[in-house]
């Protein structure tokens, strides 16, 4: 049955090459923890992706309850945390996932760095990876404000003060993030929400796609 469906689609849109690109390749011995336990270091990248998927899914569920306005943001999070079935778990996953993804990214970066895996021909992929790291940090920064509790508010005030002191572009950057030259309030929350939920994930998806396409194209780096 499945084979028939596959053949039916394959006949029309020729998906076999696509399938080959995604899944039909050999995994060399030196990255396989079944053969060398130390090869677990190659898991960090995959686990980063896994946690990213957790973040996307839990984040999608959080937006079902979250209200991005200063009157209701905190109340909606409080309600989610205390009243909603499994709300505490979903929010917990998003909260801790934000930390775990940074840890995993950090470990993955260290693995690639110390193995010198960024050397020719993989320079571009390293740079894309560092950009992913920056996007993740920015996601953490913007997501921190959204519960609109004291921690969120004051951390953002400090961040904006730092941004403001940057020479030449500081004022503009602050206004762009803040929505207002001085007031940290409704506009700020709306902007951070938009950045956190639309802009940065869009950038992240593009970068991740490029990252993975390049890995498939170039293959994994050889053993040391």
């Amino acid at each position, binding site marked *: 049955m499945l084979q028939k469906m596959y053949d039916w689609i394959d006949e029309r849109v020729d998906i076999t*090459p696509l399938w080959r690109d995604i899944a039909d390749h050999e995994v060399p011995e*030196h990255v*396989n923890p079944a053969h060398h336990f130390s090869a677990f270091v190659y898991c960090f990248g995959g686990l980063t992706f896994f946690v990213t998927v957790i973040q996307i899914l839990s984040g999608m569920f959080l937006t079902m309850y979250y209200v991005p306005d200063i009157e209701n943001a905190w109340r909606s999070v409080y309600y989610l945390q205390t009243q909603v079935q499994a709300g505490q778990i979903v929010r917990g*996953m*998003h909260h801790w996932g934000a930390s775990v993804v940074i840890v995993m990214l950090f470990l993955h970066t260290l693995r690639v760095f110390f193995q010198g895996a960024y050397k020719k021909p993989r320079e571009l992929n390293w740079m894309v990876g560092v950009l992913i790291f920056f996007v993740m940090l920015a996601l953490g920064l913007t997501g921190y404000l959204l519960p609109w509790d*004291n921690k969120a508010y004051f951390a953002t005030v400090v961040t904006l003060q730092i941004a403001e*002191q940057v020479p030449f572009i500081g004022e503009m950057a602050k206004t762009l993030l803040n929505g207002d030259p001085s007031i940290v309030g409704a506009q700020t929350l709306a902007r951070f929400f938009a950045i956190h939920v639309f802009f940065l994930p869009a950038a992240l998806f593009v970068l991740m796609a490029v990252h993975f396409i390049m890995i498939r194209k170039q293959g994994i780096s050889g053993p040391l």
Partner: protein
Amino acid sequence: MKRGKGMKFVGDSRVTADKQKFIPKDYSEYPGRTEPFWPNFLLKEWLVGAVFLVGFLCLTVAHPAPLEKIADPTDTAYLPLPDWYFLFLYQLLKYKFASGSFFVLGAIVIPGLAFGALFLAPFLDKGKERRPHKRPIATSLMLLSFIAVFWLTYEAASHVNWEEKAANNKPEWPSEVEIDTSHPGYAAYENSCLQCHGGELEGGPAAPTLIGVEYTAEEIMDIAVNGINSMPADQFQGTEEELQQLAEFIVTVNEEN
């Protein structure tokens, strides 16, 4: 490009048999036992993922995500802190050589150099050698930055009393009581009680909130005159009629909610 079934591939499926341009070393040239990604290796990856997920869920169950009080811009005592992965930058900006008139050095030049070097690492470390001990400069710089970031984070975190901070900022549903300032008793409240019990009856360091109290008007009048617990006597100053209005006012606020 020729596509589809019958195409011959060498190792990595993107590399066709007759294409010679850029070829990373074929896996068959690596020593040892390769394994097909689908389905053998993917199954193992799923297992690792499942174990990881169980551990991760245990973490979320054991430690619910923290939530503090609703943002209060007037809370001047609050110590602002970023999320832990920004603590090293936060700490860096506290040092004299990186703040004040050296702000640009601390906020832009140092992080810019560090992250710029990370971004451009492949072009700064161009040698053919990949082993860490064969490229001592790259390795030692990375180790140094790692130690620096770790130490800065530790310095920032160790000076914070996290438990006290959490205890002082427990989430409370903000009061939604409407205070009717046109009530005749409000003037008496303003004169005699507001200083300790607050403009919204929310209480203060020296006195509890008056929202949610279950006293009758007579009891309130008695407390206002004779005090209760740590509240001294004779706090109320005014006429008997004002005292009556004051008690009614407090009772009304509590009846409405």
